[in-house]
């Protein structure tokens, strides 16, 4: 009986950990876009289930990469910026329909500046 209880607990803990690990992923998957800039430009990103993403401006794709989630931390890797990996904290707000990125580590200055300014809304 004890053994069964332990197994249940183990599975329970595992399920909870799995849930923790997956909740952010399902929160982020899909299409996100900025509001139009003063010049009318719209920047967006699609996070795919297969841990890839595509960024675009005005429907023009400009960056492809892979991402990994751990809790509310996202690690991204793309061919630009010399393939340097970057880590950001995901900040969801407005009922998780808006998203911004707080840099944790990113040595690519241009990307870091761009990410800091970016606020995305979920495209429904």
């Amino acid at each position, binding site marked *: 009986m004890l053994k069964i209880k332990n197994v249940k607990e183990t599975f329970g803990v595992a399920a909870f950990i799995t849930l923790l690990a997956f909740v952010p992923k399902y929160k982020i998957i899909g299409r996100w876009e900025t509001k139009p800039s003063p*010049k009318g*430009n719209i920047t967006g990103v*699609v996070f795919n289930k297969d841990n890839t993403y*595509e960024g*675009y*401006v*005005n*429907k*023009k*794709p*400009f*960056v*492809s990469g892979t991402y990994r989630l751990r809790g509310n931390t996202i690690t991204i890797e793309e*061919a*630009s910026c*010399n393939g340097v990996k970057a880590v950001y904290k995901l900040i969801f707000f407005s009922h998780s329909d808006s998203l911004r990125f707080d840099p944790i580590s990113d040595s690519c200055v241009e990307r870091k500046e761009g990410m800091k300014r970016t606020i995305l809304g979920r495209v429904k």
Partner: protein
Amino acid sequence: MNDGASKEELGKLLFFDPILSRDSTISCASCHKPEYAFADNSATSHGVGGIQGRRNTPSTMNVALQKIFFWDGRAKSLEEQALAPIENPDEMNLPIDTALKRLKRSGSYSAYFKRIFNREPTGTDLAGALAAFERTLETSESPFDQWKFYKDPRAVSDAVKRGFIVFNKKGKCIQCHFGANFALDEFRNIGLFNGKNLNDSGRAGVSRSPKDAGKFKIAPLRNVAVTAPYMHNGMFRTLKDVIEFYNDPGKIVPGAINRDSLLTKPLGLTQQEKNDLESFLISLTDKTFLFNNK
């Protein structure tokens, strides 16, 4: 029908009208040909009187997001750029004041400017109208876009997908050709300056800095398959020539001065990789050009 009702429509009328050249024989569109993605199909274009230009005509498509203009970046806005070819003696060779007098004398143009800008034609408004038209020439419906933005994996061939990987990795193209139009707003020396037969110093002519000798604006790549020939001097006739050059620049152009460090060593692309890279570049062609006959 274009009745000049908006700034963009007025700009289009002006873009195609030879009224802005000294002898009224050429328009902006004489060199920026719509069928070649608003670029020219000759190495360098001819201005009034058949004068040969010095540099390859860049496309005026997909300029809305660009921040520097001309191969040497001497214009910082599309408006600033728009007037320069009108005055350039090698191009349209018409002083702006003379151009404005012509437009004022033309009843229809005078009326269009008054309707849109509430005044007679000015240089600022002329530039604004031309720039506004050029900003409408955005393209985002290439097979590549269908694949990446609209998520249709069947929009491109396996060769294109492999070519995109070469573009991003082994080819190192992405290091400069990054962004929505596949170009950073920067200048690079790719090794087409040797101070002898290749003596256009590019950006250095504007910045007056010897470090910039041989640097040119990174060319955007959308519709690149229809904008041959290539480079600032139009010296490469085909995309294959361009890829061969980048694969081993020193072999094609020996003795280059200050070639960018990204291009120090040959890339070592296989024939398959070169073909795939070309397929990828062709996939950046908007459907306008894929389905329209030239």
